[in-house]
């Protein structure tokens, strides 16, 4: 991208556009620019998941964490700024971190002990499952494990044919949309509504002349927290909507 400092409405607005800092007028002017600017479109494709990822922190947490003095200089800002999960009843018994480990031999011994314990646990699981593999490394599977994802297909009353796939990921949910009979001009957006009534735009892209689009957006919400997935036009009217069943029934 060249000329990032160009005049309003041009390349220079991309960052503010993604971070939600533009007024409605600036927004639509930038979206017009986007339509005719391939370099902004490819830059947008590279950066557009970031606002959703920033959503992993609430505004309050972010201000607490980042608002003060240079947090890079206080290495433990994260642990200091946020309450510990298990309470703070460990006052005084914390060892100075730099003093570890007492000896490498001790560490190795512990590791070996744990490796044996793990092997034994796996054997027990395999036995319980009738010889089947109980757990696959990195992909926990068990009787109580929720479905890995969900898929929905629909034709909306606007005539949009949409298929929405939701995949559980470590960081949240990957939402993929494949759609046809979409508007052929303007900007299209994918919105997620969560159970608390919050709506978030998780992706936007340019309409195609064929009316077909395929897009994948990372959403920093766990699948059960997602209530609706919407396709909206740049003007914000809802073109298609998928309502997910209440959690547990995916």
């Amino acid at each position: 991208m060249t000329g990032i400092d160009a005049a309003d409405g041009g390349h220079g607005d991309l960052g503010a556009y993604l971070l939600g800092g533009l007024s409605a007028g600036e927004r639509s002017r930038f979206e017009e620019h986007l339509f005719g600017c391939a370099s902004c479109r490819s830059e947008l494709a590279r950066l557009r998941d970031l606002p959703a990822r920033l959503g992993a922190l609430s505004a309050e947490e972010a201000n607490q964490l980042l608002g003060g003095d240079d947090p890079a200089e206080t290495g433990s800002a994260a642990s200091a700024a946020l309450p510990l999960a298990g309470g703070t009843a460990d006052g005084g018994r914390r060892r100075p971190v730099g003093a570890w480990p007492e000896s490498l031999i001790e560490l190795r011994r512990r590791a070996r002990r744990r490796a044996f314990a793990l092997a034994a646990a796996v054997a027990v699981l395999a036995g319980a499952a009738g010889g089947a593999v109980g757990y696959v490394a990195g992909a926990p599977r068990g009787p109580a494990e929720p479905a890995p994802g969900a898929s929905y297909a629909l034709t909306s009353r606007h005539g949009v044919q949409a298929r929405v796939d939701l995949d559980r990921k470590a960081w949240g949910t990957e939402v993929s949309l494949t759609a046809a009979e979409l508007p052929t001009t303007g900007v299209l957006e994918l919105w997620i509504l969560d159970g608390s009534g919050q709506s978030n735009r998780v992706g936007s892209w340019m309409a195609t002349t064929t009316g077909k689009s395929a897009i994948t957006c990372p959403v920093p919400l766990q699948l059960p927290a997602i209530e609706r997935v919407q396709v909206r036009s740049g003007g914000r009217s809802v073109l298609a909507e998928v309502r997910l069943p209440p959690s547990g029934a995916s």
Partner: protein
Amino acid sequence: MRRARRNGQSMDEVVVAEMYREHGEALLGFVRRASGDPDGAEDVVQETVLKVWQAAPEISGSLRGYLFRTARNVMIDNYRRASSRPRRSGSVPALESMPDAVERIDALLTRVLMEEALRRISREHRDVVLALHYNQLTVAQAAAALGIPAGTVKSRAFYALRELRSVLEDMGVEG
């Protein structure tokens, strides 16, 4: 992580000690929050550092990101083991279900990695992300609040996102 040789002290010891000095505190914070078990946190951190050191992987990106992800796996292994073992009744509070534990730990990992990424971008970029995204200021409001021209807010917003992207990539978080 490089395994260079240094005279005298064993290089392994140097590497492990360095990992603790550089990352021990942050790792301990993460594990305490994720495991809900302050007493076991130090063990998890030790095991994590040990695993990373034993594997001596060619880590091209952020060691801290790698350590966090390894700690996540150690904690999940611990849960898996604990929930598969018959427990003396009354001695330990009931464990949450395995999927719940994984979900909670992963959600926290996502957050911790994002916190880490935000800490690593420049102050100027961070301020603009905070103003526009988190505090929902317009460009004009952010310009006034930060005492810089609106055009600077816009260009910093763009370069902040670019820096964030490359920091996240460096930490092994895919786009």
